[in-house]
């Protein structure tokens, strides 16, 4: 083991420690410092400061060496991350390179990561829907996983709380499957999307096409201006980092807010190795890190610890935090740590064309698109698969130029493109079922470059997913046909699990400490001063994008933790 440097002096002691500075860790840091706690934020990656560390954000298309295309060298060296649609010449600096942070694929799993201050909040697609009671009561009703220890009502005020601060655009749609939030003005529809919305509404009473809810500031409120953030300028190159703070990221929002309190110490380049458990005290006392630059081991201490390293990494940290009391990972009395991992299924899609509305087109760009909330198995089980799927939807008009010929005629044609017809498309976002056989574990032999055991990932689709894919393709084909779309093509790209970037579970919440890791406050049943509020804590996965829920849970959990701490309960 690396040099052990145990100097338990006041310098290394804080009120709270947050592990990870991504979407959930940023919220934990903001809330803890906001409540006056001296908080240490440990982040394994480098520091990325808002605007100044976005090197490509102002680059014009012609300024990129390869006009955005990845080089062969990068692609060959990074077969996994190169599959991510958001990884290109202008954004590659924010993604983990395959060789630098190895893991073991017991089954194929594309693990998409961002290791830096801000985590994946820099590159995410910013879709933010609340989960509903259909999601929180799902396991109890359908009999998969275990019952959630919370319901929508527990989270609703916290959704409102984080939405107001983060800045969420959307429309109040009044749907029970997708509760409304505190919205800034919605993005605009285009005519073909409107057409589809109307057609679907007229043919199905339980299916809805709504404008997407996304973490973009369409109309800044005082709280956004106080963060130094302004109105979204519709550049749609968000994954390079937004100089206006137009979308929510830890870098533009929660981390600088926490810093302003004067209570936060941010320590980048600090790879958390494990959480320290004191058997005499019966509590966690701190965190062991490996300094990424010096490879030295160090310890930091605190009263409470928030683990926010992103779903699978939080599993890893807990699995690697062993002691006599917890030989199988911190808090793992139940033996479920690392198990019941689930994810979203983005495999299927559909595209078509529309020959109407040819007298109109779009202008400008929109960093968002319409959304179709789950409509399958909502009020009753009506199919031969469990749960359901939501879908993205969008329409646009292409412009094409005649590229035949050579010389002056060709040039003339290139500069005078013709408007093509409208194209429409959708992709599925299916809920997968948490199963014991979908798990992560530590590899016994192989270590990462910091000497930490590598994570072994064993996750796969099942029959339920295959049935759901088929149903999505059939139902969407029916809806597209009803809307008069033609040339309909369905696809299944057979992508590996993971590429949806919504992995969840392994440290699940539950009512019973025998079958879950965390209680209703995201608190380890067995170690009361450790809280886990990222995706690892999800009992099941819903069909909605998850990050808004991580934010709300983080804020809620900190509120509880600090109150409990003041009462001497943790």
């Amino acid at each position, binding site marked *: 083991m690396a040099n052990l440097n145990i100097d338990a002096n006041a310098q290394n002691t804080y009120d709270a420690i947050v592990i990870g500075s991504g979407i959930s860790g940023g919220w934990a840091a903001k809330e803890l410092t906001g409540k006056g706690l001296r908080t240490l934020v440990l982040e394994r990656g480098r520091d990325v400061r808002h605007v100044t560390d976005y090197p490509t954000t102002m680059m014009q*298309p*012609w300024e990129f060496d390869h006009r955005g295309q990845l080089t062969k060298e990068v692609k060959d060296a990074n077969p996994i991350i190169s599959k991510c649609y958001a990884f290109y010449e202008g954004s590659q600096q924010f993604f983990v390179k395959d060789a630098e942070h190895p893991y073991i694929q017991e089954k194929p799993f594309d693990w998409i990561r961002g290791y830096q201050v801000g985590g994946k909040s820099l590159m995410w697609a910013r879709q933010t829907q609340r989960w509903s009671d259909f999601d929180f009561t799902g396991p109890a009703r359908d009999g998969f996983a275990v019952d959630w220890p919370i319901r929508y009502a527990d989270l609703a005020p916290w959704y409102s709380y984080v939405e107001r601060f983060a800045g969420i655009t959307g429309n109040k749609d009044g749907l029970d499957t997708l509760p409304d939030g505190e919205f800034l003005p919605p993005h605009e529809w285009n005519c073909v999307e*409107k057409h589809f919305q109307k057609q679907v509404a007229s043919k199905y009473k339980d299916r809805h096409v709504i404008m997407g809810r996304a973490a973009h500031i369409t109309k800044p409120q005082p709280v956004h201006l106080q963060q130094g953030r*302004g*109105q979204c300028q*519709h550049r749609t190159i968000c994954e390079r980092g937004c100089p206006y703070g137009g979308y929510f990221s830890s870098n533009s929002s929660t981390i600088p807010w926490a810093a302003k309190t004067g209570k936060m110490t941010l320590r980048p380049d600090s790879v958390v190795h494990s959480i320290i458990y004191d058997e005499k005290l019966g509590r966690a006392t701190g965190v062991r890190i490996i300094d990424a630059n010096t490879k030295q081991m160090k310890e930091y201490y605190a009263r409470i610890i928030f683990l926010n390293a992103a779903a699978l990494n939080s599993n890893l940290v807990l699995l690697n935090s062993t002691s006599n009391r917890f030989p199988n990972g911190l808090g793992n009395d139940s033996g479920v740590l690392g198990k019941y991992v689930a994810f979203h299924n983005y495999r299927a899609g559909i595209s078509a064309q529309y020959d109407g509305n040819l007298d109109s087109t779009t202008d400008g760009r929109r960093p968002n698109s319409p959304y179709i909330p789950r409509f399958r198995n909502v009020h009753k089980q009506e199919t031969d698969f469990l749960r359901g799927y939501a879908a993205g939807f969008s329409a646009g008009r292409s412009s094409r130029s005649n590229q035949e010929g*050579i*010389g*002056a005629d060709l040039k*003339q044609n290139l500069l005078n493109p013709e408007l093509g017809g409208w194209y429409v498309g959708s992709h599925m976002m299916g809920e997968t079922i948490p199963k014991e056989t979908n798990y992560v574990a530590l590899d016994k032999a192989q270590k990462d470059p910091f000497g930490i055991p590598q994570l072994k990932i064993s996750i796969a689709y099942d029959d339920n997913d295959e049935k759901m894919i088929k149903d999505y393709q059939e139902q969407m084909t029916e809806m597209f046909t009803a809307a008069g779309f033609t040339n309909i093509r369905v696809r299944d790209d057979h992508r590996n699990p993971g590429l949806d970037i919504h992995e969840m579970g392994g440290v699940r919440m539950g009512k019973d400490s025998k079958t879950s890791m965390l209680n209703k406050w995201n608190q380890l049943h067995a170690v009361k001063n450790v809280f886990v509020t990222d995706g690892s804590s999800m009992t099941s996965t819903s069909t909605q994008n998850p990050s808004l829920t991580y934010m709300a849970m983080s804020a809620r959990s900190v509120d509880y933790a600090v109150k409990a701490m003041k009462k001497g309960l943790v």
Partner: protein
Amino acid sequence: MAMAAGGLISLPAWASNWTAETVGLTHNYLSSSQDELLANIAETIIPATDTPSAKELKVHQLIQKIVADCYDKPAQELFRNGLDAVDAQAQKTFGKPFREGDVAQRTALLTQFSQSAEPAQKEFYSLVKGLTIRGYLNSEYVMTNLTHYQMVPGYYHGCVPVVAKAVSPTK
């Protein structure tokens, strides 16, 4: 906090100081004579009119860079061999290197490549033509002066009427 909602934010100095020079380094991938040949091919595909040609916009340098950095070995070989074949063919049909041919001769030669029975010639031509078009349309000159690219449109309008467009100034 003093900040306009409309995006009038002061950016750090470096943000507006990017130039093609600081970003684009040119590889010595082709010999200077092959480079010149490629430039002349690009110029034949997109010639100067009352606006610059692909060669004047240095599209050939971009093509080289993309082929060198983004394509695999077989495509790179196809590219190099294709260049040699163009000059060889020029010697055969008009008795001089491609560079010395007139516009009609060059155009005829490339058109012949585009319809060639030899797959390598056809593929070479479509590779170079595709990259020429991409490089041209994505050049600073074209994007700023002719197609009026806006990095920061600031809006999205979903339903605007299609207007009959004035034809661009090029002839």
